[in-house]
């Protein structure tokens, strides 16, 4: 040993982003995925996905309405939100955060209008059947267009198509920008890769599909008049999930091979990070949460719903852990003082476990609300009927 350095004392700062941020990324990602899956039917016209397109769209909407609350909770001065809109526009080209908030505003509005176009005929019928208050409410939801002629329906359809088509890049952007937020930070070895937006998108498709695999059968079995789960659909989603996992694995493979093998001196920090977390990353993130659902989706296991639900659950959880490992793990890598930093989220207060759970509570409340307002059930049953007629 020709030299030895020993640190006697040093100080480093506390990192700014806590548990809210991985949670936020997970929400927007899953929303983007649900939107893309709904577009399979609305834009690409894939009949197979038609029955779940409406409910997926609604899930995309609620996830994205709940997501920004994480950001507000993360702000140290949430009362100054206006400053974001008023000042600092010269940083627009270089601050992905600036793009994000605009996307976060535009995207839910677009989904809402698309859902309105999809459900308008049902609102019209409901308005006719309901009592006084219901009539007013549903008439408002039709935006005054009560025409049910084939031309009017075709117009709805076209509008849905156009909004869906605009929505696809918007959905990709609303999640892709979060990858930019991290990727733009060249000070962080783990984040700084141009692949980050694509890695985030790929894993978002995985978590969103996983979430739908859990939610849709639940809605069909317990909340719909149909009372039974469409097991074919479950199998279809399982295979779709498996393909998304393939894409995700390819992205992560590219990322890790380059940043661990071919990168410059900073790769050593990543080495030691992954050495420290080797077992949990490999076993939990890859083996349990990606490879097992991959096998389920590509084998006959996909026809056993319970197994698929398990696959959906572990991928959804696994991607959440991946978001955590990226955001929090990336921040634990030190910059000017030796040794990894540690972070444990506080139990209560701002940016805490309780605030994250509260956000989930808001999500569940919103899900209940849209399920009550939008006639998703009737539309879904109609789609199934249509599909059966089509086969005859």
């Amino acid at each position, binding site marked *: *040993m*020709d*030299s*030895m*350095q*020993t*640190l*006697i*004392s*040093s*100080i480093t*700062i*506390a*990192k*700014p*982003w806590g548990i809210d941020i991985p949670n936020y990324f997970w929400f927007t990602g899953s929303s983007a995925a649900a939107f893309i899956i709904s577009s399979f039917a609305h834009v690409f016209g894939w009949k197979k996905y038609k029955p779940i397109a409406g409910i997926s769209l609604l899930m995309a909407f609620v996830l994205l309405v709940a997501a920004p609350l994480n*950001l507000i909770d*993360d*702000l*140290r*001065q*949430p009362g*100054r*939100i*206006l*400053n*974001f*809109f*008023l*000042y*600092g*526009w*010269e*940083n627009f080209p*270089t*601050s*992905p*955060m*600036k793009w994000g*908030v605009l996307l976060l505003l535009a995207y839910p509005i677009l989904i809402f209008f698309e859902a309105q176009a999809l459900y308008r005929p049902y609102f019209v019928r409901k308005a006719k059947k309901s009592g006084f208050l219901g009539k007013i409410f549903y008439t408002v939801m039709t935006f005054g267009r009560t025409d049910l002629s084939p031309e009017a329906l075709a117009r709805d359809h076209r509008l849905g198509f156009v909004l869906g088509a605009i929505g696809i890049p918007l959905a990709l952007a609303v999640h892709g920008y979060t990858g930019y*937020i991290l990727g*733009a*930070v*060249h*000070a*962080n070895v783990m984040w700084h890769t141009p692949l980050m937006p694509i890695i985030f998108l790929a894993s978002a498709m995985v978590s969103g599909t996983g979430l739908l695999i859990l939610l849709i059968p639940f809605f069909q079995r317990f909340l719909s008049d149909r009372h039974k789960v469409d097991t074919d659909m479950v199998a279809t989603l399982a295979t779709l999930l498996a393909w998304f996992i393939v894409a995700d694995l390819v992205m992560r493979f590219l990322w890790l091979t380059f940043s661990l093998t071919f990168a*410059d001196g900073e790769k*050593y*920090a990543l080495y*030691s*990070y992954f050495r*420290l977390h080797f077992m949990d990353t490999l076993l939990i993130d890859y083996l349990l949460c990606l490879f097992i659902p991959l096998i389920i989706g590509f084998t006959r296991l996909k026809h056993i719903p319970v197994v698929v639900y398990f696959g959906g659950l572990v991928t959804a959880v696994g991607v959440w852990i991946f978001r955590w490992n990226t955001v929090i793990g990336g*921040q634990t890598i*030190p*910059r*000017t*003082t*030796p*040794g*990894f930093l540690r972070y444990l989220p506080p139990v209560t207060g701002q940016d805490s476990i309780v605030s994250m759970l509260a956000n989930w509570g808001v999500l569940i409340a919103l899900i209940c609300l849209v399920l009550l307002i939008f006639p998703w059930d009737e539309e879904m049953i109609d789609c199934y009927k249509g599909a059966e007629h089509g086969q005859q």
Partner: protein
Amino acid sequence: MGKENSRRSFLKTGLASTGLALLASSKANAFSLKNPGRDARDARYIGQKGKHFVMVLDLRKCIGCQACTSVCKVENQVPSGQYRTFVTETEVGVFPQVRKAFLPQLCNHCENPACVPVCPTGATFKREDGIVVVDNTVCWGCGYCISACPYDKRYFNKKTKTADKCNFCAQRVDKGLMPACVETCIGGARVFGDINDKHSEVARLLANFPTTVLKKAQGTRPQVFYINLDNRVTELFDTTQDLDDMVKAEQGFEREWMKVREEAINNG
């Protein structure tokens, strides 16, 4: 002049001033590429035109006394447990050839700062004299700049709940004083001044000594220059292993220690 008249004029001035105040406040709230302070060309936001402030840290003279660390906390009312500047203390070499090495660290007031372009509110910016500052009345506390600084020189101030960092004591510099840390530095290791002034001490030091900056590869072009910076000290930055664990795992220190103790006991 009758009573009537004076009342009218009072009303008039009142109305006019209210109108003006409204106009001004609506103007302050209008959309801005930058932020209200910069738009108003407030001297605190513009800085001293034509000057470019830098700091030179002559490590040959630093004795690690942390006087700068403490005076900074007092001058800038930095909350307890938080620091704008501090001195890292290390030991380099192998016994008996060991020496202490100190590394005073502060915001580098980068020429190409990583923290400024990511700020979504325009709260943080570079003054025309090179000092990078945060307007804590505008910052909404998103922490993006804190994540972006490669030197970890920003933090959330517990009191103001906004991003905070060294501002070269701009409040003092604008009055012609030196930053508090420079003023208090016992060894004279901290030198501050305008690099555009060829007769300043910083210009002289930079002209006569080889200097280096931290993390050059980040491309931020730091404006805090070090004389006699030992590479071995900055190498410590890349030591990512948990130090305790590293010592225990890789060198088996604990076992060694037990062995030595046992031997000592056995040997009486």
